[in-house]
């Protein structure tokens, strides 16, 4: 399944199977970064307010805290389970190139190289490097041998089992069948109108229009899922 827009990568394991990892792209990682940035800014603001009452010593402690938050935030959170609060919110995780959880040296290295990625401003170098490879690795990721991947939703979203099954009157290749099943699995996230619009693309073969077409397509999906025959 490495066709078209699918950007997942297969990683062969010594056990003889390969697992699929989906690297996270620029937009979602930017969102996660901004979320983390917001948290850091808020924490610093609170500390700044608290220690402003403590005179010069307070300023000194504040500077140490600024240092710890600006350099240590990512290292501490990512070394726990590969997720900062921002990455957790957007269901991302830092893993090693082979999909294993990161170790502390990987995390330290990838985060100490942030100055290179953020050169000269707003992660300019990092964004260019990320755009030039299919795993969206920035310089720090290259050096540390890490990447950021999507965490799969653990809940199994299997095609539900009902009587509403329609064996199709045409033959489809496996990939086409999978596309229909994925349409079913995604349908909960789509509005009725969008479902109908998507299903109407196939109106010629389904011999139906609009929501009728999408219902028919779902019934075919149930058939392909092989739940009940």
């Amino acid at each position, binding site marked *: 399944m490495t066709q078209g827009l699918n950007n997942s990568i297969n990683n062969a*394991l010594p*056990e*003889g*199977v390969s*697992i*699929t*990892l989906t690297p996270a792209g620029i937009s979602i990682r930017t969102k996660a970064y901004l979320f983390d940035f917001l948290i850091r800014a808020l924490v610093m603001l609170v500390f700044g307010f608290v220690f402003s009452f403590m*005179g*010069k*010593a307070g*300023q*000194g*402690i*504040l*500077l*140490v805290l*600024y*240092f710890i938050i*600006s*350099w240590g935030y990512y290292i501490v959170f990512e070394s726990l389970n590969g997720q900062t609060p921002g990455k957790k919110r957007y269901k991302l995780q830092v893993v090693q190139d082979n*999909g*294993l*959880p990161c*170790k*502390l*040296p990987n995390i*330290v*290295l990838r985060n*100490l*190289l*942030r*100055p*290179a*990625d953020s*050169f000269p401003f707003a992660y300019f*170098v990092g964004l260019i490097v990320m755009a030039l490879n299919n795993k969206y690795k920035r*310089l720090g990721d*290259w*050096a*540390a*041998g890490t990447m950021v991947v999507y965490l*799969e939703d*653990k809940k*199994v*979203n*299997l*095609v539900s*089992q009902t009587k509403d099954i329609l064996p199709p009157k045409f033959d489809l290749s*496996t990939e086409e*069948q*999978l596309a229909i*099943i*994925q349409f079913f*699995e995604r349908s909960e996230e789509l509005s009725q109108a969008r479902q109908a619009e998507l299903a109407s693309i196939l109106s010629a073969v389904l011999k139906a229009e609009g929501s009728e077409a999408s219902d028919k397509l779902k019934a075919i999906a149930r058939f*392909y*899922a*092989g*739940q*009940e*025959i």
Partner: protein
Amino acid sequence: MKQNQFVSINTTKWADFESLCQGKEYPANLPQLYRQICNDLALARTRHYSPALIDKLNELVRLGQGVLYAGESISFKNIWLVFSSEFPKALYVCRYYIWLALAAFWGLGLIAFSWIQIDPDAIYHFIAPAQLNDIERMYNPAGDIQTEKRHVDSDVLMFGVYIYNNIGIAFQMFGGGALFCIGALIPLLFNSFYFGAISAYIVELGYQDSFFSFVITHGSFELTAIIIAGAAGCKIGFHLLNPGKYTRSYALKHSGVQVLPLIVGAFVMLVIAAFIEAFWSPLDIPSVFKYIVGSIFWAIVSYKLYTGTRYGA
């Protein structure tokens, strides 16, 4: 076999496996169970079961390999090993970079020092008069800053400044060095020239005692750590520029592993330097004590640097 049959046969096994993976200790049969799950995933793929099922099995395998192949957790022994053996080893591996950085820093500093000694007015080409006035005020033995009694709270303030500023610079140099050495070389050379020029200017003014007695002790750790951080950054940048027989991505990864102990060591050295600079260097005691302690520290740092770069010990 139909998918629903496959699921109903295996579903309890999968649930057991998932809960075992989330536990702290795993039982002896986990590897066997893991291989069965791998087998299930391979079967599900070849039989073209639904993507949701494949995703679930994929996730289980990912979870399992994370548990089975997890490395050693962080222990005191490992942290100690970083400083007792990995740091000197990294000094040895990166010795040419360290020597070059040392030579560049002290060489350019010496050039700046001699230049300002010969032609004192040349300093106005590099440093603004207002800044020079500040420096003059700071180290004037009869001035308000040297004679004023410092309080503990301003020591704490300066400690914060040193931590935030100096370690920030070292990390910036390390990270910036990855950009073809530029981000490390420019700050390194700038600081060396600045340090050399200021020292010469202060000698010129005749304030050398208050200046050198202040900088000697923490300078041993601070300057050496900055040089090490710069050398570490340069190594990453140079390997990116000239990967040699490796691919560029592998060269980057390889050099990253080699220099990591260096930056960790430099970090610890800078924390030590910040403590000294904030709480020892400004102490109001006869300069001779500071010179003695400073010389001892320089001897220790130089010896460690020598045995590290020469023998990796």
